[in-house]
């Protein structure tokens, strides 16, 4: 049964006086898989640490299953756990690393069986790995052991901050599979921050996009940076590689970034798009099916700029859109939203 796992109100995080995250309101339902995407420095890791109760926000309230919660609260200590990006283990054996959290919970009974089960989940042979020291593992194996140590705790929420960024392909696949199994078999809510948006779109029930510490939508948005120019007619634009012009409404500041929702982008295989729209010519490079199997995310290269559009399966079939095809991309400049600095 679905319930509100997290309710965040007026969350602000500042470091050295600089605001790095500001979320007026965010609610996450569970059990579910929630994806977090955004460029480096967008506030993903800060939000993950707040959701993982590793740090309290500078201001604002975090509610966990309806109750205000802070780091070390008994209600969250044994329910929420987080796998960081860096593979890190304590300076002890693999078995002792997995046993640590179990012992804290008083789950000392049948320790060996639970350690073996956890190692099996991440695809490591318990007989070969349980007695190994932390320094006898590769980066990928260490990350899998770190995940095993969390899965052994059967958490209600497992947060994974770019869990596969620093591991090899085989470990990456195993980590992804183990996390999904935890969601399927145990009803664990997964919150995953990753740059791999295709993977996120293929597995997540919800994807949130962060940029400059703000939530800018529930999908991978198109973020276009300046420099912004003004043409002879007084219209603002950015000159793209190849000479095409990306037209925008007047920016509020030079450093403002234009946000164009993928839903606001239309694709057309013909030469011309609808009148009253801005048009760009590009090559459709990728189509990714979303988990609902009703929509696709298309990636179109315009010069060196990658733009995304969200299309229905029917529309893609009807217009015979396929990777490699030259398309006309249309949008109305009025649909562009400006994103400034959080402090600005």
């Amino acid at each position, binding site marked *: 049964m679905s319930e509100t796992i997290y309710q965040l109100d007026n969350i602000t995080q500042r470091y050295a006086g600089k605001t790095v995250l500001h979320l007026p309101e965010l609610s996450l339902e569970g059990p579910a898989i929630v994806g977090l995407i955004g460029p480096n420095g967008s506030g993903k890791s800060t939000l993950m*640490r707040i959701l*993982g*109760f*590793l740090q309290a926000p500078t201001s604002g309230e975090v509610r966990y299953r309806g109750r205000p919660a802070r*780091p*070390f609260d008994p209600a969250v*200590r*044994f329910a*929420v*756990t*987080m*796998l*960081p990006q*860096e593979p*890190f283990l*304590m*300076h002890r054996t693999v078995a002792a690393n997995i046993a*640590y*959290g179990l012992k*804290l*919970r008083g789950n000392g009974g049948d320790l060996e069986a639970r350690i073996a089960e956890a190692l099996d989940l991440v695809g490591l042979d318990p007989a070969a790995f349980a007695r190994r020291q932390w320094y006898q593992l590769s980066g990928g194996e260490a990350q899998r052991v*770190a995940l095993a*140590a*969390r899965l052994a*705790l059967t958490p209600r929420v497992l947060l994974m901050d770019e869990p596969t960024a620093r591991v090899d392909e085989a470990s990456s696949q195993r980590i992804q599979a183990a996390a999904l199994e935890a969601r399927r078999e145990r009803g664990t809510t997964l919150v995953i921050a990753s740059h791999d948006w295709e993977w996120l779109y293929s597995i997540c029930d919800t994807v949130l996009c962060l940029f400059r510490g703000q939530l800018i939508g529930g999908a991978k948005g198109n973020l276009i940076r300046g420099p912004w120019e003004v043409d002879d007619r007084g219209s603002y634009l950015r000159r793209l590689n190849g000479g095409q012009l990306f037209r925008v409404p007047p920016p509020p500041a030079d450093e403002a970034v234009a946000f164009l929702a993928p839903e606001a982008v239309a694709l057309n295989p013909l030469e011309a798009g609808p009148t009253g729209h801005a048009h760009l010519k590009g090559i459709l490079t990728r189509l990714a099916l979303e988990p609902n199997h009703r929509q696709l995310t298309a990636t179109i290269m315009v010069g060196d700029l990658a733009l995304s559009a969200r299309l229905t399966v029917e529309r893609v079939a009807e217009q015979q859109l396929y990777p490699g095809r030259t398309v006309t991309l249309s949008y109305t400049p009025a649909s562009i939203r400006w994103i400034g600095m959080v402090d600005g």
Partner: protein
Amino acid sequence: MGYILDGVVTALRLLWQGDPQTFSAIGATLTVSSYSMAASLLMGVPLGFLLGYTEFPGKHQVRLVVDTLLALPTVFIGLLVYALISNRGPLGEMGLLFTLPGIAVGQTLLALPIVVALVATAVESMDPHLRPTLISLGANRRQLLLTSLWEGRHGILAAALTAYGRVMTEVGISMMVGGNIKWQTRTITTAIALETNKGLFGMGIALGIVLLMIAFAVNLSVSFLRRR
């Protein structure tokens, strides 16, 4: 050269025969260094941990003071402690002057900055991922502290070992506060200084060998503990 060889032969004979004077100095040294190490570790490990683990206003200034105290000359500590515990000093009534506990007070002051500074450095060099990992595995504040200490045990051992080496080999405090009284406050180092002045190299070399053996035994124990 001959008198040095004679000294080595005499040293071995003194140790083999269990010379009472030699073993009295060894006993005094082990007693006083045990007191001072226990006191400096009990105070220094928590202080060093706090200094390395937490952020507070004035931390850099505190660190600067602690690092400066690493270079405290033993004769200056001897002078300070002597002034405090002599009959005219504020702690004169405690009767610590020319006693082993008196020397231990001075040696504790010598070892404390070493323990604090090296434990703080060990804690600062711990992997920054340790804290979030322990919290995310469910540790409360006390468990976080204890596990962090355990994870930093090698650095803490190194701090203790360095402080022990300094305490064992100091002369100034033992001489000034202890008075080098035969059978009572004569330690290995003050005995070596005295016997060398008297031209009796045998006992000096014997005590030097003992100092080396103690250092070897301590290092061996630490190395064994590290492997476990």
